[in-house]
């Protein structure tokens, strides 16, 4: 079966996010009422797996192995079957 996972990799709370801060700064300069900007990266991964559970296990592993650096990154993902 075909699954689609949406993986979002962001910075763990407490780690400085210079990209977000710079963006926030320039948005404020354009007079928008910005409080904070955080930057994250989204991967949309389509994969084959026998079950939702199996797909989730694969995605978890991919996140650990490649997509996130546990020193600074936090990961969120959702897996859904492609109909």
């Amino acid at each position, binding site marked *: 079966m075909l699954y689609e996972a949406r993986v979002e990799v962001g910075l763990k709370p407490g*780690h400085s996010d210079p990209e977000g801060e710079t963006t926030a700064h320039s948005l404020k300069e354009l007079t928008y009422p910005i409080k904070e900007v955080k930057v994250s990266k989204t991967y949309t991964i389509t994969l084959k797996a026998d079950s939702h559970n199996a797909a989730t296990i694969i995605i978890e592993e991919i996140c650990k192995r490649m997509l996130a650096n546990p020193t600074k990154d936090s990961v969120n993902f959702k897996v859904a079957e492609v109909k």
Partner: protein
Amino acid sequence: MRREEINVAVIRVGGTNCDLETKRAFEDSNMKAEIVHFNQLCREKDLLDYDILVIPGGFSHGDYVRAGAIWAKRLMARLGKKIRQFVDEDRPILGICNGFQVLVEAGLLPQFEGISSFPEAALGTNIPTGYNCRWVYLKLEDHSHCAFTRKTASKRVLKIPVAHAEGRFILAREKKRKQLEKLMENHQIVLRYCHSNGETANDEYPSNPNGSLYDIAGISNPTGTTFGLMPHPERAYFGWQLPDWTRNDGPPTFGDGRFIFESVAEYLTKKF
């Protein structure tokens, strides 16, 4: 082992782009250097035929995902066993800039408990943000341990350029204190950014060009054989590469970067 017998593998993959000048530096220090494509190392060539492994600067695989991450995972997946042996036999590994990022992503640095299967540190986005090409001052910290800096230094402050967007050395927030202490205890902090007078940069921009924790510019593993640094010693190898050589009548013969290459040659000739 004689200097002329030292075999250096400067390895590359799509996006590596500092291989030629890195090879040139090793050759000028009388070692044999060869640029080897990662594909060759996976197929017809043997990593263990070399005495030094060098991962030069560049944007390996476009630095997609995170700087150095993709190549690091490929490196360990394809050559993990041989790299472990390389490290166990105390053969030197050098990572410059993108190479440093690769070594950290591969778990080869800092090696708190040996080679790690996940990164134990990170080189985060610069503070201030953005790509930054500039000459910086570096203080030799715990250097006598490290194969690449063990040579008696004529001075404690080196002038070498950096050029990167992701070079801010960081540790996991919750372990930061302990791990930093451990790095010090193990004499792993080799190079720190400093002011021109040698005083610690103390996180002051631009002396510390990227916001690195504790002004860290380069670290080694506990045995001192694997070394990664953000500055580019190959760009400060010759005197004519220096930014201020025109102050004198003609350039000096060498720059401060040469020390790194000379040190590792000395390490190998003494050890093996």
